[in-house]
């Protein structure tokens, strides 16, 4: 473990883009141990000679064990049993609060030079359009996870969500760097501001949720499933913000990010049609069904085995499922997908078929074996030929 020689406190390394930075040096108001720490580091900290570090690490570990045990127990209950466990009406319930910051990099890449512009509900500086986009969609993402799925932040422990805006110059991307969200402004020709679609912000935050749950490996099928989960929860954030049901939604991801009213990054309803004859990008290569699975090299240039290509297949399965159920996607299909995504049985190297089994099982648990919801899930996967 790295130790800051001045303070004697541990450092956490992370990377933004290609820059290696010791982020926790800049968390003046926080103990660095509250930053994202992998279990092996927590274990080391628990044994640390620094009493305060060890106490915090142990407390975090205890909370993690409690949460996992609770999830395992609750996951095994029937819908009726789960209902009986809910607190009685009128009982005092501990309410979690959004813990989020927006920081402006002003076209730099070093997080230590970023300016805090919004801090937990308060604008520290005047907000530009990009900052407002992130405040709105970042808050909506947290609220969707908390209100609908009962999850407090990406780690379910209220982790501070940090959004870095205006990354580099004309940066054509948004990403989850392992602990924070980073957004570029786009080149202004092919790509617009990467904060201009709430589904993109929901997408990036969901990468954090996946990291803390199954940590699906970012290669081939498990990687495509990782990408698809981000699209699934990203679209639900957008639909909820717009109060759209499954029929009203256009099911497009990044419809503003890709410049041109006829273009979007991805279509969950009709993968492979998000952009056609685009002057720079050509045609959307996403397949909708398993028989069209795209085989690409497991390299950066091969999109790690086509993780952003083949996500179209599982996206389509979710779309068909949600559409056949009707209503708002987050009411039924979203809950089934969330329970499957957070099921301990979902392994890092999971394949589409593994996730299919879990969603069918959770549909049965939530709505009953043989229910129309369970049938809708089966039909969704059948349509995607998984």
């Amino acid at each position, binding site marked *: 473990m790295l130790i800051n020689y001045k303070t004697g406190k541990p450092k956490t390394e992370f990377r933004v*883009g290609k820059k290696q930075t010791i982020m926790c040096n800049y968390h003046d108001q926080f103990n660095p141990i509250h930053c994202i720490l992998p279990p092996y580091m927590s274990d080391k900290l628990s044994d640390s000679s620094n009493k305060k570090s060890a106490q915090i690490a142990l407390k975090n570990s205890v909370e993690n064990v409690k949460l996992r045990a609770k999830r395992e127990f609750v996951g095994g209950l029937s819908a009726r049993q789960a209902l009986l466990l809910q607190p009685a009406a009128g009982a005092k319930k501990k309410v979690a609060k959004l813990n989020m910051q927006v920081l402006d990099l002003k076209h730099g890449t070093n997080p230590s030079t970023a300016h805090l512009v919004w801090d937990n509900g308060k604008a520290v500086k005047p907000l530009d359009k990009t900052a407002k986009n992130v405040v709105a969609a970042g808050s909506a993402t947290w609220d969707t996870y908390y209100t609908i799925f009962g999850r407090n932040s990406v780690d379910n422990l209220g982790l501070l969500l940090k959004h870095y805006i205006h990354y580099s110059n004309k940066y054509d991307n948004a990403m989850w*760097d392992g602990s924070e969200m980073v957004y570029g402004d786009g080149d202004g020709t092919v790509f617009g501001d990467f904060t201009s679609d709430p589904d993109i912000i929901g997408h990036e935050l969901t990468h954090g949720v996946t990291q803390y749950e199954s940590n699906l490996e970012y290669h081939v099928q498990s990687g495509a499933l990782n990408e698809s989960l981000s699209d699934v929860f990203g679209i639900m954030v957008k639909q909820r913000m717009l109060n759209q049901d499954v029929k009203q939604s256009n099911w497009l991801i*990044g419809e503003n990010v890709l410049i041109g009213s006829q273009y979007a990054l991805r279509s969950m309803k009709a993968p492979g049609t998000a952009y056609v004859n685009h002057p720079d990008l050509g045609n959307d290569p996403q397949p909708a069904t398993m028989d069209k699975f795209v085989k690409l090299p497991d390299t950066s240039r091969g999109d790690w085995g086509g993780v952003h290509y083949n996500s179209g297949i599982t996206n389509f399965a979710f779309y068909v499922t949600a559409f056949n159920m009707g209503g708002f996607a987050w009411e039924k299909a979203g809950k089934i997908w969330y329970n499957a995504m957070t099921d301990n049985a979902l392994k890092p190297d999971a394949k589409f078929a593994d996730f299919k089994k879990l969603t069918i099982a959770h549909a049965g648990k939530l709505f009953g074996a043989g229910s129309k919801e369970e049938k809708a899930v089966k039909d969704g996967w059948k349509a995607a030929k998984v």
Partner: protein
Amino acid sequence: MKIKLVQSGGLLPVTKEAVTEVDWTKDESEHLLNQIAVDDNQKSSMVRDGIDHTIEINNKEVAVNLEKASGKYAEVFDHLKKNLKIVKT
């Protein structure tokens, strides 16, 4: 000699390339590549939708961290980054 910068990856996976002529010696370019090359241990496995850079020089292709370059080399890479063009697939 010719040097090509290749950028790949991203939320929408796109490959971009830019080429320029440099007057570096072979030894100089080898030394530079050793300094800015990214080895697997340095790669963060938790980045999602990330962008990567590769340099093609002297018939070699090396994954690099452009932030590690300084001085005249950083200027060349900045120029290349500004002139990246999408490779249609």
